[in-house]
């Protein structure tokens, strides 16, 4: 009976494997059929391969498939069939119950059922049983099986015990019922499969528009609420877009309405205050150009800058959609040069699509790659003003009436310099954290990612859940770190990694193997290790290294990597050797330059000797342990340098002409620290009218410096304290300041002073503009006179004196009369006179020297005879009474 037990145990096992929940060992035989059906169903539903494999197993171990079984059992039908049921020691209660059921169904049965019901020959063995008689059987295929002979009487007893109700009710349940059950089960399975399908379909539905399975586009945020970027940035953009509503949708914005109401209520005092406040309204997005006839925001375009993969494009699209626009994208893939660009921009801005009646919002992606000419064109479109439409001029386009969003990685590209002034710049620095242009501390560079990654990892987890990807704990965090918050590369990597394992699990180990845009090559790793250590092959090691370098191919990469990695290996004992290795690097560098310059590319191959030279001098004796991280320090440094170069270039181009001439080349860099400290004068933070004379001078001086260098103060949000801070823009600090632990935190200016300076800067700019305009008039006048030869031209000694514009009125009755411009009052100017003292040469800033010229007041020749002329409607008039002191004149210059 051991065989028997063994066999039953096997069966139980088989069954248990197939249906672990339901099976009891005792029911093995009866439930076997059910189990089999079940198993097959399940297998079919799950996987074809698995199922067939399972079947195969069954066939081999138990060749009791129905067809075969018949051929085996025919001669001994009675005995073997009986036998089959015999050993099942069933609980009688259970049996009873099933019998009752069986009786109920008995009438419905057909013969077919009974035939189906033939018992399974489970007593077929592969080896002859030892303890009892057996019959040897042979199948058609030549396989031999043995069937046990069982004494007849046992069978009889068993039969008489069992056969109570129905003739053939050997199983606990009738076959019919079993079939019904199986049908039910099958149905259930089908339902389940259907459910799974629909489920996956629904999760895929988000993406399935273009049948794409690429996750980065699938999981691109579609709604405002799905955005990962910082709420502050999102809001700024939405706010800005909303500012266009009055222009685009012809409805007044809530703020404008409020303002109007408030203005009605306001008393004079309040108005003044308001104006003061408005002057330094810190959020540029808030500002509406009040003089603009079209109610457009002050900043006509929006510039989103930030590292790749942070979701700039997504944000732009979502925001545009959110505000009811139809986003029209132009990116680097489109032709962006010359006429084509113009055509496309104009199309986008003036037309709207036939199917979609929404106004369009132009999104210029990757604008940092655009040509200067195209950027210029864009600028001209922004600045275009309403002109009366002339017939015949078809090309004439009206002012900009649609929002434009520009997206770029580096806002300091020279081509964008002019555009930057017109743009509301939003810096996109990380996910779920504040934006800040350039951090105060030097160590953080401006593309430094932020540390809080919870929002990003949460989104990644979501993606994983929807795709049944099971990442190991901490993997997502690591992934985010590794990619520097680059969402796109995170999702890409995730998709790739999930393919690696069948169960879609992602482990940290997988992650470390995965490359994320950064080059990691086994061969590089291998080559580096070989170069940095003396291998086993000591005799011919130089040749070995040369071969490896040749195989690897990119000698420059090897060199720069070993250069950065030489801290990882044990350094040579003598400094002389160290020097020699550095010498080789220098040699290779010269070589590279030479090859590139003279295009002797054949020499490129010789650079491998530098690798050998380095190896010879710095390789350590033992093998390098651990993983050598590929370095790109020099590349990073180059990038940083480029950022600063662009910055400096933009500063240089923003310089006032004279300043520009005097700071050439390195002198500008050299002067920057001084200039920066000049931008922080010693001024108490009090009301401007309370400043002492010295302070006022200092303020003026500081503002002058700001304007000369084309700098401004810009309000930037501080992420830690959530306050706004005024910083110098462009951020020169990153050029001038060095990382230094010992640096004491310098106390800067107070916020109020900065605000004051900022407003003064704007005022000074206007003043200068006016000045150049005036000067234009002056020069014209001077020319007129010199042409007529009526007067001798007197050139002022100092430029500052020019400000006082000694002008001779073109058709003045008295030829020697000099004129002096004056702004304010009638917006006019006055002339004078022989009596005016010559101005002090050196001291244009000083007002006190001048004293008051009293003569005009004293003499007062009466209306119409005064020698003081005012500009009035295009001409001049002296029929104005007004007492004026020289001091007043100077004050307004």
């Amino acid at each position, binding site marked *: 009976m051991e065989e028997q037990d063994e066999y039953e145990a096997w069966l139980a096992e088989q069954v248990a494997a197939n249906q672990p929940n339901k099976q009891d060992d005792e029911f093995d035989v009866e439930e076997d059929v059910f189990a089999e059906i079940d198993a097959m169903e399940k297998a079919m539903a799950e996987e074809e391969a698995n199922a067939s494999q399972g079947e195969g197993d069954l066939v081999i171990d138990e060749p009791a498939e129905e067809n075969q079984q018949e051929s085996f059992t025919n001669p001994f039908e009675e005995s073997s069939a009986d036998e089959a049921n015999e050993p099942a020691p069933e609980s009688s209660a259970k049996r009873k119950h099933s019998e009752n059921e069986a009786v109920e169904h008995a009438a419905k049965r057909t013969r077919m059922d009974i035939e189906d019901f033939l018992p399974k020959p489970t007593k077929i063995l592969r080896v002859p049983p030892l303890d009892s008689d057996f019959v040897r059987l042979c199948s058609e295929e030549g396989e031999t099986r043995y069937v046990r002979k069982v004494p007849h009487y046992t069978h009889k007893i068993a039969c008489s015990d069992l056969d109570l109700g129905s003739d053939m009710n050997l199983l606990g349940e009738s076959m019919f019922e079993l079939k019904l059950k199986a049908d039910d089960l099958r149905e259930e399975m089908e339902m389940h499969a259907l459910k799974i399908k629909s489920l996956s379909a629904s999760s895929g539905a988000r993406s399935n528009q273009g049948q794409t399975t690429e996750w980065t586009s699938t999981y691109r945020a579609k709604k405002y609420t799905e955005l990962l970027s910082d709420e502050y940035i999102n809001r700024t953009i939405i706010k800005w877009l909303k500012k266009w509503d009055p222009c685009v949708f012809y409805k007044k914005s809530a703020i404008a309405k409020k303002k109007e109401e408030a203005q009605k209520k306001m008393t004079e005092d309040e108005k003044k205050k308001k104006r003061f406040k408005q002057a330094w309204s810190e959020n540029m997005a808030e500002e509406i150009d009040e003089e603009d006839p079209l109610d457009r925001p002050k900043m006509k375009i929006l510039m989103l800058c930030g590292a790749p993969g942070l979701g700039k494009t997504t944000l732009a699209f979502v925001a545009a959609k959110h505000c009811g626009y139809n986003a029209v994208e132009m990116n680097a893939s489109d032709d962006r040069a010359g006429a084509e660009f113009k055509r496309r921009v104009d199309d986008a801005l003036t037309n709207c699509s036939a199917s979609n009646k929404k106004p369009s919002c132009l999104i210029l992606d990757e604008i940092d790659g655009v040509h200067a000419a195209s950027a210029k064109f864009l600028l001209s479109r922004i600045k275009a003003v309403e002109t009366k439409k002339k017939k015949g001029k078809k090309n004439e386009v009206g002012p900009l009436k649609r929002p434009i969003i520009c997206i770029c990685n580096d806002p300091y590209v020279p081509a964008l310099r002019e555009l930057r002034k017109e743009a509301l710049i939003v810096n996109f620095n990380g996910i779920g954290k504040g934006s800040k242009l350039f951090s105060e501390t030097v160590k953080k560079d401006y593309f430094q990612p932020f540390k809080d990654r919870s929002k990003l990892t949460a989104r990644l987890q979501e993606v994983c859940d929807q795709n049944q990807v099971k990442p190991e704990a901490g993997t997502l965090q690591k992934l985010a770190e590794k990619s520097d918050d680059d969402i796109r590369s995170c999702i890409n990597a995730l998709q790739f990694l999930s393919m690696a394992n069948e169960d879609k699990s992602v482990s940290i180990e997988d992650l470390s193997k995965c490359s994320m845009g950064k080059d990691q090559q086994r061969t590089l790793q291998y080559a580096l290790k070989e170069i940095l250590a003396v291998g086993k092959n000591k005799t011919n090691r130089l040749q070995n290294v040369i071969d490896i370098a040749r195989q690897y191919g990119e000698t420059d990469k090897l060199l720069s990597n070993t250069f950065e990695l030489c801290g990882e290996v044990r350094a040579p004992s003598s400094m002389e050797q160290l020097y020699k290795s550095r010498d080789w690097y220098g040699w290779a560098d010269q070589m590279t330059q030479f090859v590139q310059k003279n295009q002797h590319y054949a020499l490129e191959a010789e650079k491998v000797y530098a690798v050998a030279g380095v190896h010879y001098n710095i390789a350590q004796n033992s093998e390098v342990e651990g993983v050598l991280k590929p370095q790109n320090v020099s590349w990073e440094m180059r990038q940083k340098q480029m950022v600063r170069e662009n910055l400096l270039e933009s500063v240089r181009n923003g310089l006032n002409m004279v300043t520009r001439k005097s700071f050439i080349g390195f002198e500008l860099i050299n002067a920057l*620290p001084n200039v920066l400290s000049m931008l922080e004068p010693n001024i108490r933070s009090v009301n401007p009218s309370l400043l002492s004379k010295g302070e006022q001078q200092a303020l003026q001086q500081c503002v002058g410096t700001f304007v000369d260098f084309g700098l401004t103060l810009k309000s930037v949000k501080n992420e830690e304290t959530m306050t706004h801070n005024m910083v110098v823009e462009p951020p020169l600090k990153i050029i001038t300041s060095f990382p230094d632990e010992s640096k004491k935190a310098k106390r800067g200016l107070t916020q109020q002073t900065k605000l004051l300076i900022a407003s003064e800067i704007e005022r000074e700019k206007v003043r200068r503009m006016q000045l150049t305009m005036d000067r234009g008039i002056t020069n014209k006048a001077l020319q007129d006179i010199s042409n007529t030869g009526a007067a001798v031209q007197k050139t002022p000694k100092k430029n500052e004196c020019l400000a006082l514009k000694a002008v001779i009125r073109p058709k003045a009755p008295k030829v020697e009369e000099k004129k002096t411009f004056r702004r304010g009052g009638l917006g006019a100017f006055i002339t004078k006179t022989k009596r005016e003292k010559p101005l002090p040469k050196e001291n244009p800033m000083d007002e006190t020297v001048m004293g008051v010229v009293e003569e005009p007041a004293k003499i007062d020749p009466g209306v119409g005879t005064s020698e003081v002329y005012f500009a009035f409607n295009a001409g001049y008039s002296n029929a104005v009474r007004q007492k004026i002191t020289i001091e007043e004149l100077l004050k307004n210059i």
Partner: protein
Amino acid sequence: MSLWCDRYRPKTFKELDYNLKQAKQLQRMVKEGDFPHLLFWGTNGAGKKTRINCILRELYGSGVDKLRLERHEYTTASNKKLELHACASNYHIEICPADAGIHDRIVIQELVKGIAGGQSLNNDKQKQFKVIVITEANRLTKDAQHGLRRTMEKYMSTCRMILLSESTSKLIPALRSRCLGIRVQAPSTEEVKQCLMQACEIERFEMTDEQINRIVKLSDRNLRKALLLGEVCKVKNITNGDPPAYDWEEFLDKTGKMILRNQSPSQILQVRTNLYELIVRLIPANIIFQKLFLQLQAACPDIHMKTKLAKAAAEFEHRSNLGSKPIYHLEAFVARFMADYKSFLDEFVDDMDEDEF
């Protein structure tokens, strides 16, 4: 024009404060109406540009002060578009072809030909020639310099060139021979002091004599720097005390001290990070070489080592000009010095030991 160095820049020969004899000579030369191509050379802040401005002023009158910014576009052989900004008046143009990097040859060829090619219309009223001021001539590539030499001769009738350079050593001999070289000597410390005091007086800012001396010493005979420092002192209201030092100079100084403190491979790596910081902040490699050399040579005990160091500095600076990655050459220089210095120190210690026995 609120910076002192702009505001108090002399506009005519009469206003110049130093190198007066040379100024007289120049003035006379210009008065003659014609002069050869000029090459002004001298250190930064010596007053080269001021003198050129005086010449232009003398030649054309106040018209040269009416500057405008011109943008020129060029296309390189590889069809890359270049943009160059130039200050120009009706009579002269000031360009810095070196800004175009390796493409400066094209700038020279196109621009100079364009300007020099045109004749002025009314010759009786104006001078017959325009002036082209080429700043930072020392940064011109060899190609550009060769491009310049023929142009200079060819267009002699319509234009004069004034080259500005820090030193003549970086100009090819052919160019040097075509120009009248004029060296602008840096003002003596006394002269710097004089100028500074003048400016302070006009600005009504009183500094102690000590303070003025300090600034003058810091400025290293660079008048521009002296004026800038003076202005900073005024803004910060420092009447007696150190004016804020330049961060990069401080940093470089610290780096030099690191080199002297300890000579080991690990130290070299630390020095390297410092050098990287400097390069990233756009401090040119040759200035780093220069300053480092000056600092290190002071620590050298004997003349042999000094000459050795000078030779190494010159050698590596040259190489860094030939190459493209200054960090390699700077570090090689540092390694060279460390190796020498260490062996010297070791010998010194050995000698001491022997003496003891």
